[in-house]
């Protein structure tokens, strides 16, 4: 029983990331009809927003420490962050420690701009082209973006820790009456799950309860008619692209402490996120979220030692296996709408 609870918990944070990326993918597909293979790259750029903001906070000047030697025997050059000069070392350290949560504020405008530039600069030229063209161009864009990141940040993962207050793990086992240490879960992953739930809720509320959201939903249902009413639906869809980019970026920012960001992390999530979108149902926002959590949890279960002993390799194929079963039984996915990608 404790092992089952444990794997459900494990699946939640992985599912959170899948759900956030798949939500953005679905928003873009539902509004603009574009299959965006560069969406994983937006997740990766979000994580690198956290890295960049962290570097801004630790931007330093060099002080020579005559009492210590470097590896060549010369006086040691010590990097002192400028933030120490501004706020003192204790406050400076506290701000640096909170770099990841603070970088949310930095990443939102950056990601909105990246999304806007991507849509206006490249993707809008492919609206009327076949999906295969869209996939090729966005996949190419993803490779270009990751190579740019690699050029500036290197190929090695860059540690981007969570605030010290979130270090360690919470003992759910003791809380639920199991033996201590049987169900532990890192604090930051709990934060990530809560953050994902908040973002997903905010996106749904925005679409459901604002005039802007209402127009966008109407445009997703019947773009032509909304256009005939004199509403500039293209402009709203462009804004939605920016919002989808920001959602992916925020998912990346908060994921940075879970796995050290590297240039390839977007690709690691991209394929699985597409499976999530297809399983959830193309164009269905609730479907994307539901499938994200469902597949995240299933993936965790498939990684259990007892499962792997019985069915070796299941962890590598479980998501695709479930996708096949769902698509055979429900060809439009869990919550897919009739008519989407069926013309």
């Amino acid at each position, binding site marked *: 029983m404790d092992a089952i609870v*444990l794997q459900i*918990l494990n699946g939640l944070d*992985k599912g959170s990331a899948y759900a956030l990326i798949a939500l953005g993918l679905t928003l873009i597909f539902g509004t603009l009809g574009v299959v965006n293979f560069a969406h994983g790259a937006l997740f990766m750029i979000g994580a690198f927003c956290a890295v960049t903001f962290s570097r801004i906070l630790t931007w330093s000047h060099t002080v020579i420490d005559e009492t210590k030697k470097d*590896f060549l025997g010369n006086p040691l050059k010590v990097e002192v962050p400028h933030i120490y000069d501004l706020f003192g070392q204790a406050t400076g350290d506290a701000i640096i420690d909170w770099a990841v949560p603070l970088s949310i504020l930095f990443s939102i405008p950056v990601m909105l701009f990246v999304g806007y530039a991507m849509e206006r600069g490249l993707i809008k030229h492919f609206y009327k082209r076949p999906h295969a063209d869209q996939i090729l161009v966005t996949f190419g864009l993803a490779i270009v973006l990751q190579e740019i990141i690699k050029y500036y940040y290197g*190929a090695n993962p860059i540690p981007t820790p969570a605030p010290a207050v979130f270090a360690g793990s919470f003992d759910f086992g003791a809380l639920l009456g199991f033996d201590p240490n049987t169900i532990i879960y890192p604090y930051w992953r709990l934060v990530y799950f809560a953050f994902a739930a908040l973002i997903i809720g905010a996106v749904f509320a925005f679409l459901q309860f604002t005039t802007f959201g209402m127009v966008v939903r109407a445009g997703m249902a019947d773009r032509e008619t909304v256009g005939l009413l004199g509403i500039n639906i293209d402009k709203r869809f462009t804004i939605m692209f920016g919002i989808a980019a920001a959602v992916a970026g925020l998912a990346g920012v908060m994921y940075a402490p*879970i796995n*050290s960001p*590297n240039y390839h992390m977007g690709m690691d999530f991209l394929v699985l996120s597409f499976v999530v979108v297809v399983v959830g149902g193309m164009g269905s926002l609730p479907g994307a979220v539901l499938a994200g959590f469902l597949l995240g949890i299933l993936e965790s279960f498939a990684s259990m*030692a007892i499962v792997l002993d019985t069915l070796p390799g299941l962890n590598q194929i479980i998501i695709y296996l479930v996708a096949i079963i769902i698509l055979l039984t429900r060809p439009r996915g869990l919550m897919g709408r009739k008519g989407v990608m069926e013309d």
Partner: protein
Amino acid sequence: MSTSNFTRRGVLKTSALAGAGVALPTIFTASSAAAYMNEPKGSTVTLGFNVPQSGPYADEGADELRAYELAVEHLNGGGDGGLMNTFSSKALKGNGILGKKVEYVTGDTQTKSDAARASAKSMIEKDGAVMITGGSSSGVAVAVQALCQEAGVIFMAGLTHSNDTTGKDKKANGFRHFFNSYMSGAALAPVLQKMYGSDRKAYHLTADYNWGYTTEEAVKSSTEAMGWETVNAVKTPLTQTDFSSYIAPVLQSGADVLVLNHYGGNMVNSLTNAVQFGLRDKQVNGKNFEIVVPLYSRLMAKGAGANVKGIFGSTNWHWSLTDEGSKAFVKSFGEKYGFPPSQAAHTCYVQALLYADACERAGTFNPCGVVEALEGFEFDGMGNGKTLYRAEDHQCFKDVLVVKGKENPTSEFDLLEIVEVTPVEQVTYAPDHPQMAGGELGTCNPGA
């Protein structure tokens, strides 16, 4: 009316087959005037540096390339001479190799066996490389080593830690300066016993590929021999990025030590995840829970950040060694590039110099002459103390370093500290050791 059986398609097919047939005998064979593959005829000799310039190990590859460039500079008489000043063999004069100026070409392995073979093949066939060296993966090393054997050039391996490189996949034309999985296990076990005792339960997470298997086997057999029990060993996919679902059940298993047989990005992520789960703060079986990383590199330690603090592992070489050879290399490399060299840089630099020295001592670039010069070659002054290139399997035998993540690093390069220099005798094994079983060294191939 006359008819013909010739068709356009038929003519094309026949021409292509005939062309391939004519070209086939010239692939990987020296020209009739040469005594061996790519015999240097002019005033220069070309070496092929096959390193990961793209992909996940690109940073490690960049350090390898820096080291090779430094080696070429020193071989050609530039710079301060580096390790040529401390090397016990004095055959190298700083006038190239056998009087020929050293030039080089580079290839990108991408850390993929097929790409690495293609780039090595191109350097041999198109650029006339007489030796191929470099790489950051055992899969790549085994693949390129086999290609070099087939082509008739020498292969001086870069970073490859799997037992198989000089075990079941050993080749007469290939040599390895790096240590291997067996040596890691043999060096680590006594230190782990001293630090954590003999009554421990270990849980292994192992990367699901060749290197992972040999490392798991080596560490398991070494730790079990000193009394540890292995409670479970779980294979993790090489493409895995989030290890939470593998780490979460560790505490439930009753294990009090987690061994991460992971390298590169796998190691960075699994260690980060394990620390996030608070494993190191836990008490199991009345003991502190511990994590072990059998193979460390500085670049990996950098990626894992503060999570490496206090965690034991092994490494081939470290810039903080105080022998004359290590100091000379750190000085040369540090003054040229502004930071201390990694173990990848050291291994590759040494490989280039050892090849050059073997050519000088053999008086030829002929691979068979070089093999003869390197087999059983004992030397000193290149870091890690006295070193032997064993004739039976072309594995290098030297001291191995047990390191741990430093608690208070002074810079981004000062991440590991040496805990013990394990003497070579302790990590030496018989050529027919079960972990190295299978495969034949064969005979050298000059390619002619």
